[in-house]
């Protein structure tokens, strides 16, 4: 009984670390632009497919695969930003919710998701492809419990990415620019800042994080399917919503909570209830919007 609880917690942390990493990239875009990028997962999937395609045609090492995945995701992400988001920055309502420009950007990003998915299927038409494993040894034994080594990689990556982002946002000039743009986009533009270039760099950064997440996830699942795109978008979005929409520490917490919640509810109630409980929790949290959620939903002000 207790043994199950502990083993489930370890499994939940493994999944949660992956969700956290996905959510950080998603949150970076949402927190800065207040826009939902539906093709976030599809760009990650395309990066993973780019690496898979290369590994099926050439002999490449793991590190090269990781870099290829990240490069592919960054390229795809930048393409999305330029085509779907950049044309709609001029609109004055950059910070409000469902303005028509944010709907247009979101629907456009969905259109490119469809494009990416078809491109991936055209490049590698089988349903499933093998991806080189990250670690081929035995899982770690902690007493009678098993912990996959991959989850340590994922957790380490999530923590490292958070520290790196914190440094970028609060210790560099670029970070200052980002926070100024979040505060008052209009004022940032008036003092001569290139808002569009800040956004494209944020997109590239978020896609690089997504690419890293995609590589680690594909290498720990040891396989890729086109479904990875939808899966990444949904899980990243769920974790982001649990973490309060827009907060980076919240995204990590949301990812871990989602992972733990899924592992335990799957064990006790089965896979359907697992998903139902996750969505119910998000629905209730969004509908009630408790005060603790709104308090840490934004990146700290530049002033």
């Amino acid at each position, binding site marked *: 009984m207790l043994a199950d609880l502990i083993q489930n917690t370890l499994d939940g942390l493994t999944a949660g670390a992956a969700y956290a990493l996905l959510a950080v990239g998603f949150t970076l875009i949402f927190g800065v632009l207040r826009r939902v990028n539906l093709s976030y997962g599809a760009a990650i999937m395309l990066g993973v497919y780019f690496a898979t395609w290369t590994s099926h045609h050439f002999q490449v090492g793991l590190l090269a695969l990781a870099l290829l995945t990240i490069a592919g995701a960054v390229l795809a992400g930048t393409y999305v930003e330029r*085509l779907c988001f950049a044309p709609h920055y001029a609109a004055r309502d950059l910070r409000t919710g*469902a303005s028509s420009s944010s709907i247009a950007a979101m*629907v456009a990003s969905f259109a490119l998701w469809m*494009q990416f998915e078809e*491109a991936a299927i055209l490049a590698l038409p089988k349903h499933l492809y093998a991806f080189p494993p990250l670690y081929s040894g035995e899982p770690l034994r902690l007493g009678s419990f098993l912990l996959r080594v991959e989850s340590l990689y994922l957790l380490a990556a999530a923590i490292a990415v958070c520290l790196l982002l914190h440094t970028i946002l609060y210790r560099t000039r670029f970070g200052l620019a980002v926070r100024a743009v979040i505060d008052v986009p209009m004022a940032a533009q008036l003092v001569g800042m290139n808002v569009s270039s800040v956004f494209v760099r944020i997109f590239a950064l978020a896609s690089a994080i997504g690419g890293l997440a995609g590589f680690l996830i594909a290498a720990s699942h040891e396989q890729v399917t086109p479904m990875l795109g939808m899966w990444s978008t949904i899980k990243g979005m769920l974790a982001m919503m649990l973490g309060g929409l827009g907060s980076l520490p919240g995204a990590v917490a949301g990812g871990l909570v989602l992972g733990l919640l899924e592992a335990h509810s799957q064990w006790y109630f089965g896979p*359907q209830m697992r998903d139902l409980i996750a969505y119910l929790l998000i629905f209730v949290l969004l509908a009630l919007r408790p005060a603790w959620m709104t308090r840490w939903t934004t990146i700290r002000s530049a002033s």
Partner: protein
Amino acid sequence: MDDYSIGVLTNIGLFSFLALSAYLLLIAGEMSFGQQAFFGVGAYTGAMFTAIYGMPLPLAALAAMASGAVVAVLVGLPTLRLRGLYFAMATLAAAEMARILFEMLHFQREINGELVGPDGTQGFRGIRWVFERGVEPLEYMALIYALLVAVLALFLWVERSRLGTTLRSVGADPELAASLGIDVTRLKLGVAAAAGALAALGGVLYAHHNTYIEPRNFDIMLGVHSLAYALIGGLGTAFGPLLGVLIDLGLLEGTRFFHAYRMIVFGGLVAVLLVFRPRGLLDERVVHWIHARAFKRA
């Protein structure tokens, strides 16, 4: 007309109901990611009424629309005061909950020696009310389009009325509309109920056309497609969403011209179109222009 054309045209008609449902919320200023759930509620409710309880289709359609409206109000009550993207996310969560509940729904009864009814992820087979009455595909298509024309007429009438103006003013600026004495919350709840009923009507027609439905039919892909249809076609008139469906299902899928590259072409086309026309092809400006010209001639 050959069977293939009838099939494509029927699908265009069916998904137009869903696109109009998304459009109705969009012009009232709300973006819903969850209209596919009401399409699903309508499909399941209507199919259960005809296949299990042996009721006629018109009665089943009314029941389906009522349940679509009720569920939409239940979802709308806690969520409609949320702003923009938060509402979109909440409706997405609600719609996915509905899909999972369809997966968990087992309610089979033996009808004429055969098990009929929803069977979880196995879906719901044998929705044969239309088929058993010998309704030809062409006749069923005519029925769908007759209903669609009625709905369109209602839309055009409402948009010309005071209610339509109120609706668009709430969509443009809810605070300003509220300060003019409009009960924004009640109006939006009404819009959500109407949109839910409309999607449910599409759903019940869809179920009886396909004779088989499964929870996967009502996933998020369908919801985002319906939003995209409304936005591509344009938010200026109720003909907009129809144009959106026509472009995707008619031009690209129907002609099979692009084969495997359909989504690459369609995706790129939509993204580029939205750069130049963020409120769709038939946006408010185009509609005004057409109206002005039409009145000058008359």
